[in-house]
């Protein structure tokens, strides 16, 4: 009797907590954290400070791509106006002010403060929270037109969560500073992978295949990605908790047994310094294909 009551109370508390969590508005604090982290990432790019001092408009444009890239990519995919993000004046003004104070603050106060570890950890944690909201928002938005199309929902959720990478590449390509060999799609970074996992999970939940409420899934997923990101930042390691599953799946499905065990699939930089043995065996295979083609 007591056990039943306490279990019921626990469940009630869990429901309340998750529901309240899922109703937290992103504006302004989480949005500020997201814009701050994005603009600081831009600032840490090679040559960004010089561009900001010579050509502020280009720098502002790059900052907008970094901040709103996911939304832009999902709008392009869905056939909506890519400039739709400019509709929300408040957010654009907030992002622009953060860009201004990061790049042009006297004595670089803001970037110095950001280097202070607790500030960085807090901002990154809050940015991961916004990632969940973006994925969920993307899937909800796409499901108004495509209710049963899982691929479309996953693609839009993924684009919203991690699309800024692709948009950043496009913007650097237009500026002439991008090299195709270092494309992020070839070397999928951790946020891209985790957004894909999240998009798949939330699509399954949306289609009713996952026996969880949306707010519970949001809470669990956010908790997971925030804890993982902070742990990765504190230990300064590149491998995420997903890495063992990746290696196992990679070996089973995609033939990663050719790589040596020290390199992590999809993470090591394959800019011509990759595993020699893999290159050799795939080169042999490619040669055989070419020979067959020219027969």
């Amino acid at each position: 009797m007591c056990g039943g009551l306490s279990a019921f109370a626990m469940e009630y508390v869990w429901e309340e907590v998750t529901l309240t969590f899922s109703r937290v508005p992103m504006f302004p604090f989480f949005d500020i954290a997201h814009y701050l982290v994005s603009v600081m990432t831009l600032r840490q790019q090679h040559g960004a400070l010089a561009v900001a001092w010579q050509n502020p408009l280009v720098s502002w444009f790059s900052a907008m791509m970094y901040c709103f890239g996911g939304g832009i990519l999902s709008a392009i995919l869905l056939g909506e106006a890519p400039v739709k993000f400019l509709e929300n004046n408040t957010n654009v003004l907030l992002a622009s002010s953060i860009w201004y104070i990061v790049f042009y603050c006297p004595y670089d106060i803001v970037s110095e403060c950001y280097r202070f570890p607790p500030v960085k950890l807090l901002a990154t944690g809050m940015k991961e929270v916004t990632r969940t909201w973006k994925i969920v928002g993307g899937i909800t938005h796409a499901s108004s037109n495509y209710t049963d199309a899982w691929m479309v929902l996953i693609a839009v959720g993924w684009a919203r969560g991690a699309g800024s990478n692709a948009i950043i590449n496009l913007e650097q390509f237009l500026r002439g500073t991008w090299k195709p060999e270092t494309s992020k799609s070839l070397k999928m970074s951790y946020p891209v992978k985790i957004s894909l996992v999240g998009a798949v999970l939330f699509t399954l939940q949306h289609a009713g295949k996952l026996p969880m409420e949306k707010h519970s899934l949001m809470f669990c997923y956010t908790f997971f990605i925030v804890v993982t990101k902070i742990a990765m930042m504190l230990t300064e390691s590149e491998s995420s908790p997903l890495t063992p599953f990746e290696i196992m799946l990679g070996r089973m499905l995609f033939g990663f047994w050719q790589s040596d065990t020290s390199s992590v699939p999809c993470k090591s930089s394959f800019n011509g310094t990759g595993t020699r043995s893999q290159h050799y065996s795939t080169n042999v295979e490619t040669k055989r294909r070419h020979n067959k083609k020219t027969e």
Partner: protein
Amino acid sequence: MELLSALSLGELALSFSRVPLFPVFDLSYFIVSILYLKYEPGAVELSRRSPVASWICAMLYCFGSYILADLLLGEAPIDYFSNNSSVLLASAVWYMIFFCPMNLFYKCISVLPVKLIFVAMKEVVRVRKIAVGIHHAHHHYHHGWFIMIATGWVKGSGVALMSNFEQLLRGVWKPETNEILHMSFPTKASLYGAILFTLQQTRWLPISKANLIFFCTLFMVSCKVFLTATHSHASPFDTIEGFICPVLFGSAWGDHGDHHHDDHGSSQDAHGGPSSFHAPQPLAKSKEELNEGSRKRKAKKAE
């Protein structure tokens, strides 16, 4: 048309134009498309390095026509991906071609007779896509002839027209050449087919759509099967273009050729690059003919 009705080809053409494309014809389209992806240099290595990028490239190869047509008509480029079954079938074909143990699937489909059957079925799908694309564009733009031609063209050529951007995804950027500058046979055939279907749609060509689909399919199947069987990259249009283009667009070795024969002689490359800026060359000219022409001009100048 009386001959056609006497041979009851009309009914045959009508039933042919109504054959459902999914799953058999679509399967062969995916197989041939992803086979061409596998032939690209570096594709197999890409599939080992980053399966996601390889999968996206495979999807572009299979559904590139729908994506481009949607972009042109202002619809969501991702719209065709709502057909889960097609996407799953294409993904299964991609997986089997790239990751089958001991490459069994690839070896089975590379056998020439089997490959020719798939190539033939792919051409059936190509012609049908052109027809559907023009019908779709006609629905939005009743009098937009050029819009219909453009939509039909991108539906027929598919990923070829966006090859620069698809290669970008694989980490290759070759801006010095693109499909419009150096058109391959399928792209050119899709353009001519789109023109024919547009003329039919706007009632300038007195032939029914089913008959036009039938004849175009016969032509494309025979040409492509012959070209694949003989491993040649020539085109049946070369001879005709060799006659028409000098008349319509000026001979490459006419007035323009005299001013720029220095350029021809000095910087001759495989694409005949400099000449294309100055005068539209007949595309039938091969590299040997161009070199011979430049040598003749040099000899004349030296006299």
